[in-house]
């Protein structure tokens, strides 16, 4: 590490903020208890007191986790660009290519608004169609907000399950699409489009600039999702104290065989970011929905949506879109059944 770095204000700010973050995070539970029991003077274990306690603790906890991890992910992502990823995937054989594309889909910065130029850029420069799909499935589904929220509200095991099954779906679905040779269902103009010369590469980025990119990511993402998180946790806090515990069991319980396919079918057209859906899923599970069913619902909401299909329709013909939705939806159902069966 060079000395220049210590002169950068960004870096020093981060060095000061990190220990403060840690102290606040560690003392969050005791501070909450002190606030609820002493300052507000509420009677312990009444519904209302527990609802307030749940919200005062959960909301800052989740926001603090988001801030910390998005900051580091923002720095990490500055090392991965769509151009590097494309270069790595050009002419890759299937399967190896599908695995690489899914993994790179997690770390490469991605916004659904750039899905079309990205698709064109990949396919034009010789990334196989199936490999491109692996990327396009993994990138939105396995995003840091979803993983952090799952970790914050369900613990690390659920977060790991989500990542590994999401990866498996992206790899296998992309591989199948590649094997089916569906290039004929890509709009003709896609293969006729000429890519311009030059990589359009930006210059070398200093580390202090990468830290700025971390701050920017926090501002942008937390600024966008905090309201969803607050709303979701508020609903969760309300349900926590007032809705009977087994309320969802008869609709989304383990013994309802059609719960998984039905949840996926309902989830596919719905569009929500991870911040909105995870707190709702946590309520569903608390009230008796099984993990597999709830996870399948969440995945289908995040991975597939009507707006996304409309965007993709520009470059793909309808049969390919339906095949894509059917394969990914099918994969999600298998994951749902698998977890209902294991747990």
């Amino acid at each position, binding site marked *: 590490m060079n000395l220049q770095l210590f002169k950068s204000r960004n870096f020093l700010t981060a060095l000061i903020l990190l220990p403060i973050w840690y102290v606040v995070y560690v003392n969050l539970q005791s501070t909450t208890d002190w606030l609820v029991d002493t300052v507000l003077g509420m009677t312990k274990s009444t519904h209302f007191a527990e609802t307030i306690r749940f919200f005062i603790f959960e909301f800052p906890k989740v926001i603090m986790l988001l801030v910390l991890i998005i900051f580091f992910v923002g720095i990490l992502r500055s090392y991965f660009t769509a151009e590097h990823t494309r270069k790595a995937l050009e002419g890759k054989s299937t399967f190896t290519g599908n695995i690489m594309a899914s993994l790179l889909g997690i770390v490469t910065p991605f916004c659904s608004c750039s899905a079309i130029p990205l698709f064109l*850029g990949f396919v034009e420069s010789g990334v196989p169609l199936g490999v491109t799909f692996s990327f396009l499935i993994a990138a939105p589904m396995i995003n840091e907000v979803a993983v952090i929220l799952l970790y914050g509200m369900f613990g690390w095991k659920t977060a790991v399950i989500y990542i590994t099954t999401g990866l498996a779906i992206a790899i296998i679905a992309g591989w199948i699409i590649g094997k089916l040779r569906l290039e004929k269902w890509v709009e003709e103009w896609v293969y006729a489009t000429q*890519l311009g010369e030059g990589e*359009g590469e*930006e210059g070398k980025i200093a580390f202090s600039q990468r830290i700025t990119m971390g701050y920017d990511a926090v501002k942008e993402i937390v600024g966008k999702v905090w309201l969803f998180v607050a709303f979701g946790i508020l609903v969760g806090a309300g349900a926590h104290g007032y809705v009977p515990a087994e309320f969802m069991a008869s609709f989304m319980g383990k013994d309802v065989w059609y719960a998984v396919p039905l949840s996926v079918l309902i989830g596919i057209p719905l569009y929500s970011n991870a911040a909105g859906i995870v707190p709702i899923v946590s309520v569903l599970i608390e009230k008796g929905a099984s993990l597999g069913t709830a996870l399948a619902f969440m995945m289908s909401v995040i991975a597939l949506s009507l707006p996304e299909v409309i965007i993709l329709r520009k470059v793909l013909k309808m049969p390919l879109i339906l095949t894509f939705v059917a394969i990914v939806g099918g994969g999600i159902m298998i994951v749902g059944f698998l977890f209902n069966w294991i747990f």
Partner: protein
Amino acid sequence: MNLHNPPQDLGVLKIKKIMNIQVLGTGCPKCKSLERATREVVAQNGIDATISKVEDIVEIMKFNVMTTPALVVDGKVVVKGRVPSNDELKQILTNKIYIL
């Protein structure tokens, strides 16, 4: 030769050309804010430039850009996939010296 600080005594003829700025984007919210920011910076600093928006995806792909929005100055991609702050935009747009 350092193009940013050309030695005065070389007799290089400096002609200020009108800058051609293009904002590439298919109409996402970020693309609109990049266009707005660019217009602001150009107006505030009295930069002599024409600003146009490229929304056609086939035209955008001619710049080999995969992440929108992107900023193109005189045919060269200078920013892509993000909206820089007004300060950074000012630096990007004012550090250009044209030598003919």
